[in-house]
């Protein structure tokens, strides 16, 4: 579903991503761990089409992101580290707006059900976003991703700054999406969240994918040890 084939990104002499090879299957959750500057966000940005790789290719559902960026947009949804929304619009309105960008026009009831599903309490649905906490905004971001019915989900540090309960709810949603066939690529610093939710975990260092582990084959402590040894 999400394939990186010798994906390389250079900024002058600096290599941000070095011959990355990845194959994330349908319904699989792949967590990328690594320090800041390891190349996690660059990988996600290459799949999003935000940056052009220097060489290699990223494909989604068999379509090259570089050559058919417009087409691949319909397959993906994205949740950034901090979901920023229009402060003057309510949660429902923001969801309606971003859904309409993706050519989805939902009824108010549908929009509310997406937000509820994402864990946002109903009393907040019609409040302006400026009164939302970060966690609440992340939930709207999840609702936007879910409403897009994308087959691939790209997450860049999605649980950063969320309280444990909200993080847990978020993991639940990811599992549900995965069960429904959504492929998920998640960049994170959170080793325990990665272990808990991902099927496979990759550890990146200086643009290279240095380790790739099946999550079920390793305990959280072992993963932490491996991570610390690697980076």
């Amino acid at each position: 579903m999400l394939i990186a084939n010798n994906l390389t990104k250079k900024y002058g002499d600096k290599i941000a991503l070095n011959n990355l090879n990845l194959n994330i299957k349908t319904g699989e959750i792949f967590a990328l761990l690594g320090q800041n500057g390891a190349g996690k966000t660059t990988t996600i940005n290459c799949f999003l089409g935000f940056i052009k790789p220097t060489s290699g290719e990223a494909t989604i559902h068999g379509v090259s992101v570089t050559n058919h960026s417009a087409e691949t947009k319909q397959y993906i949804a994205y949740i950034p580290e901090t979901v920023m929304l229009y402060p003057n619009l309510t949660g429902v309105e923001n969801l309606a707006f971003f859904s309409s960008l993706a050519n989805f026009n939902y009824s108010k009831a549908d929009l509310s059900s997406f937000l509820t599903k994402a864990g946002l309490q109903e009393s907040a649905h019609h409040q302006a976003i400026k009164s939302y906490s970060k966690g609440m905004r992340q939930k709207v971001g999840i609702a936007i991703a879910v409403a897009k019915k994308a087959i691939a989900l790209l997450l860049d540090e999605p649980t950063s700054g969320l309280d444990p309960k909200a993080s847990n709810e978020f993991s639940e949603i990811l599992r549900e999406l995965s069960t429904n066939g959504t492929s998920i690529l998640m960049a994170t610093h959170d080793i325990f969240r990665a272990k808990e939710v991902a099927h496979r975990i990759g550890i990146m260092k200086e643009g290279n994918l240095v380790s790739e582990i099946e999550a079920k084959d390793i305990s959280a402590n072992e993963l932490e040890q491996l991570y610390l040894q690697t980076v």
Partner: protein
Amino acid sequence: MVALLIKNFIRSKGLLVGLAILFISGIISLNIGKQFLEKNEKIIQKTSHFQKENIDRYVQYMNKEMGLLLYYVRFGLVNETPNIVGLSIGQRDINPSLHNVTIRNLEEQKYTTDLMNPMYQLIGNMDLSFVIIYFFPLIIIAFGFNLVSEEKEEGTWSLVLSQTANTQKMLRLKAGVRYVSILSVLFLLLLIAKFYLSIPFDIYFTVYILTAFFYISFWFSLVWLVVSFHKNSSQNALILLTSWITLTIIVPALMNALVIQLYPIPEAFSTVLDSRDGYHSQWDKAKEPTIEKFHQLYPQLVKYNHPKDKDFSWLWYYAMQQMGDETAVASSKKLKEKIKQRENLSKKLGLWVPTIHTQLTMNTLCFSDITNYLAFIEALERFHEQKRMYFYPKIFSDTPVSSEKWDTFSLAYFKNQPVINLYMVLLPYLIISTLCLLWANINFNRKKYNL
């Protein structure tokens, strides 16, 4: 999506304040236009009354000699002031819309009418055209400078980019909401102007509306071009404000300097001097040459002669007055030609500068440009000549004052109807705006997926 963009726009109080400022300044400008029209109307009414009173008084006291009476009696010609002048006062606050002249030396009298407070000339008028040309672009800049950059700076852009491949459509709609809001204020002001100033819905008002519409559209296309470079908000604001200063202040000032440099008008001074010399020097000269020249000018008046036994006659006096105009005729003609050349050059250069083009066009449409004033001056010359031709035979034949029906001499009116070339008015905006939009389109396509 449009409804949500409108909601987002309406809930942003700063933008509404911008619209309110535009609307309030527009209303103030209409009030200034109304006051100008009322003041002008008052002057005309007073002059009409004064002319009648003046003629009655002089006829009563100077009833022995027609020549003496006509030394004093003044006849007024009004440059008709349609109500649309209230939208763009232009040259009307510098040059009078009414001239009151005797049949004596005209050149001198052209510059003696001063019915306006010179203070107004110093501070200028904030008419609707001023608001459209100067204020509207500032609000357009305020509404549009961060059209793209605010999305980036507030963090929504990455989410937008991930949701759609057609970000330009969203930006177009976002700009469209602002465009429609500004146009709504413009059309509302024009609608109010139509009724408040009682402006007839004729070709001039229609083209005025079109001009304002295209001018506003030009500024939007310029803003669209600047934001298409995907610079940050402060850079966009700097570029756009610099454009505003350049287009509204620097370029007009430079153009003015260029026009003055290319067409200096020393004749403005020499015409008055020539006229005064031409008349005054005759006092010390022999009468025959003066009368001879007068007869050459008006062969139909050859039968009237200066009595040899008299030192003074009205024929000689008015011939002497006539010489003032004749002496100044060359410099007066040159003066008018140069003013026309200045106007023509300004219009030609203005085709490439929308602010100047708009000001000149609006002045033309509102009968307040220099062409209108020159036409009025030429009409005044014809009017003055007609009065001379009517009264000269009566003066020289010593017709009794009582034989004339003086109450028929009311104010005369001059009506100018400028011919409007719609292509020349609108084409410059179309060309410049289209170029801006095309360039912007190239930029947007090039940076389609830029974070």
